[in-house]
């Protein structure tokens, strides 16, 4: 039979039984739609999360104190194996390292005159705006100066600026954080949430000040940004050797952005498959429908 | 028992209307034995369906036992039909998946008779048509004459007062046909009113009243 003939024969057969065909198609297409929609949602989520992670580029290595990965709390807990500012500064001098951002997070009340607000404090380095792609609405970011002897300067998140200095330009004004005085040098542009953290409510101060403020002996994390022409394995190896030389043994953990992405990708792929599987049940039932109808048609 | 007055019925076949019954009036008394004959398309089957309450007239009146049927609701007509009228068809219309017994039992099931009396009634009518031994056979295991006798048993299991037969011998050889005729005539002798639509001159002649239809009208009515 020629293709045209067989096609027209099939269409005629379908048209003769159009209610039957229509219902079969409806059942099956609901199944397909369920599967496609759910897997699209899963895939969309995956793309979204991966984009969030790669927006700073993939040439990042995170260095945390301690050898074990303790559900991401490694740097947050106390440690007997501290990671110091001079470690961070020393890594900054390595070849191919473009920027180093030490991180010490905490929670404190920020006061300006009569107004005050408890919020998240991020102790960082002056390169943070560049590597985290933070945009400023007013003034400038923390200066890139000696990590260990920083001045008491602060950059406010957008929301916090509105809370503390409604309608005023805060640059040059002073705020109190945990009893210490900081001069405002800049205000961030609105940024929204990043992975559940509201950047607009953050306050950025130099890491060394943050360590003093919170009485911490160790940095929580050091983010190292390196030359994109160098592979992350090579870079991680160099940093590992360098740190072992400094500390005497491996009492830290290095996680490359590639590893984070791979793990994320795995988790989210499983999620996508699960969602698709959920939709596939309806498709399966639709398939059973087609089998049944075909069978009846054959018997007739 | 049956009083048809000026019955009209028109079917729409494609674009052309077909007048199946024109002004038909007919009285049938209890216990009569009628044959309805006539060429194809003369309206004899329509007349039978009308009498059997399967069809509704476009105009005219139909009194069944002095009850005006044309105004009755479908529900009520179905009950009247089920309780008073038995049908026999040319093609038997037995349900293939059911045994002879179960086929005969159907009308009793529809009217929710108790199981015990059901069994008894079915056994009685099967005995009457001489098929007690075939009760558990399915239609595909029975001959044509046997099939029609099962159909008769089903038609009379409700003890109807009217038996309508549409070409009851049309699909049978003459021997089986005679068997069937013998059974229904015996029922007529026992008091049932019998109306048979047929092409079979032999069957037609045996009736005590002969109706001939042409073009949707009663052409002759002879006793």
């Amino acid at each position: 039979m020629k293709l045209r003939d067989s096609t027209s024969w099939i269409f005629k057969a379908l048209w003769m039984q159009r209610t039957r065909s229509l219902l079969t198609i409806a059942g099956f297409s609901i199944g397909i739609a369920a599967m496609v929609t759910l897997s699209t949602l899963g895939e969309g989520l995956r793309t979204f999360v991966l984009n969030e992670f790669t927006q700073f580029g993939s040439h990042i290595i995170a260095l945390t104190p301690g050898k074990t990965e303790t559900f991401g709390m490694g740097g947050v807990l106390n440690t007997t194996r501290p990671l110091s500012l001079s470690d961070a500064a020393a890594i900054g001098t390595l070849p191919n390292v473009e920027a180093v951002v030490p991180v010490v997070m905490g929670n404190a009340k920020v006061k300006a005159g009569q107004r005050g607000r408890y919020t998240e404090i991020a102790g960082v380095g002056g390169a943070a705006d560049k590597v985290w792609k933070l945009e400023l609405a007013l003034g400038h970011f923390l200066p890139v100066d000696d990590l260990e002897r920083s001045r008491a300067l602060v950059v406010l998140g957008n929301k916090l600026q509105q809370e503390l200095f409604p309608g005023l330009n805060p640059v040059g004004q002073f705020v109190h954080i945990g009893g210490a005085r900081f001069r405002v040098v800049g205000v961030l542009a609105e940024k929204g949430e990043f992975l559940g953290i509201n950047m607009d409510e953050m306050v950025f101060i130099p890491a060394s000040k943050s360590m003093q403020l919170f009485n911490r002996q160790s940095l929580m994390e050091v983010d190292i940004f390196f030359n994109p022409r160098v592979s992350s394995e090579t870079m991680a190896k160099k940093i590992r050797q360098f740190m072992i030389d400094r500390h005497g043994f491996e009492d830290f953990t290095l996680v490359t952005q590639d590893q984070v992405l791979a793990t994320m990708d795995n988790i989210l792929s499983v999620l996508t498959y699960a969602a698709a599987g959920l939709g596939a049940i309806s498709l399966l039932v639709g398939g059973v429908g087609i089998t049944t109808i075909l069978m009846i048609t054959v018997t007739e | 028992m049956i009083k048809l007055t000026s019955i009209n019925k028109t079917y729409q076949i494609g674009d052309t209307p077909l007048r199946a019954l024109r002004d038909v009036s007919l009285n049938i008394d209890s216990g009569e034995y009628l044959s309805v004959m006539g060429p194809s398309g003369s309206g004899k089957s329509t007349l039978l369906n009308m009498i059997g309450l399967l069809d509704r007239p476009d105009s005219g009146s139909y009194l069944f036992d002095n009850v005006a049927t044309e105004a009755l609701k479908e529900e009520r007509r179905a009950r009247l039909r089920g309780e008073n009228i038995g049908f026999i068809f040319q093609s038997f219309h037995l349900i293939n998946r059911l045994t002879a017994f179960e086929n005969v039992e159907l009308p009793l099931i529809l009217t929710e008779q108790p199981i015990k009396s059901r069994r008894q009634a079915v056994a009685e009518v099967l005995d009457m048509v001489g098929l007690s031994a075939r009760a558990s056979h399915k239609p595909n295991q029975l001959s044509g004459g046997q099939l029609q006798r099962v159909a008769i048993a089903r038609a009379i299991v409700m003890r109807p007062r009217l038996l309508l037969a549409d070409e009851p011998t049309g699909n049978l050889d003459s021997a089986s046909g005679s068997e069937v005729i013998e059974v229904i005539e015996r029922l007529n002798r026992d008091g049932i009113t019998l109306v048979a639509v047929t092409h079979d001159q032999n069957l037609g002649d045996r009736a005590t009243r002969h109706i001939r239809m042409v073009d949707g009208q009663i052409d002759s009515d002879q006793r």
Partner: protein
Amino acid sequence: MKLVDQISFNWQIFQRHGLRTFLLLAAVGIGVASVILLTSLGEGARRYVDREFSALGNRVLIVLPGRSETTGGAPPIYGSVPRDLTLEDAYTLEKIPGVLAVAPIVAGTTTVAVDSRSREVITLGSNQSFFTVRKLAVGAGQILPARTREDAMAVCVLGVKLKRELFGNARALGEWVRVGDRRMRVVGVLEERGESLGLDMRDILLIPVRTAEQLFNSPSLFRIMLDIAPSADSDLIQTKIKAVITERHEGEEDITVISQDSMLAAFNSILTTLTLVIAAIASISLLVAGILIMNISLISVSQRRKEIGLLKAIGASSRQIRQLFLGESLLLVSLGSVAGILFAYSLIAFFSSLWPSFPLMPPLWAVPAAVGVAFFSGLTFSIVPAKRAAGLDPVLALRGVQE
């Protein structure tokens, strides 16, 4: 028509079309089973969390240093604040009526070593109350001594996994381990117990709270956990805790108090929502099954025109015909549902025997909901075919004419 008669009538039809019936049953069964199975996953997760929490006791409050003023924002997790939450703060809370036990917690990571074997583990500094609040018990030896409340004793309790890693099968009690730059004597080993709220209790080191302060060179508490009396008013105690700490911190309310109940409620509502969403998605398959039933019923009606005509001729009313066809779908859905339920429960039993620790069990509403949706879908999609059957003209139907 009596119910038994109708069922047997429908059953004879099923027998006649065995394969078709089997496929329809499979369609309904798959739908019902998937709703039950998938919701039991969600419900299992909820029960798992529930059990984890209730292992702690429902009357636990957690005090965290720091505060977040963002409405609906996450509690401060870093534990670093300018004004430390101290051991003295914690012990003051004991005076609040209704508070049964106060467990201060200093948390960190340290290296624990025996001879050349060393491991880095999460180290918690606390006192005896920690065992009360977290419902922990030792499998060997004893818990931290009463004196650890104030004294920086050089003693420790090991998690079972840590004990195995350091000592193998050898006896650990009474032995010395190196923790950071100190030496401590092992006084107990925790009983075997899995993860608890994300913290692997088999792989931790417990030391006296004062010892931990010295070890980490910080007086700052990571958390305070409190056990409160079953009859106590949780909200009132939370307010009092905030008042006491605020007074001690020069008028600054710089802590967050979380109750076990509220955390549990939050988890519960998230997981219940998730389960409902999954159930709804799985129900789509029942919709598809309904469409399939409609399709088959329509075919069935057109195949059985003569039969319908006959039934009408022998006295069946339109209502009875409609009932017959609806009944056929209902019977199909009932049998399919039973098959689906049996299938789901046998799979659940199978998986439960594979993973006994996960409480796989459908929520109470799952079976009625699945069957309900199946019936709704089956009935809704049967109305059109049943009406079509009931509306057939008996004269034409008897002749087998397609209208």
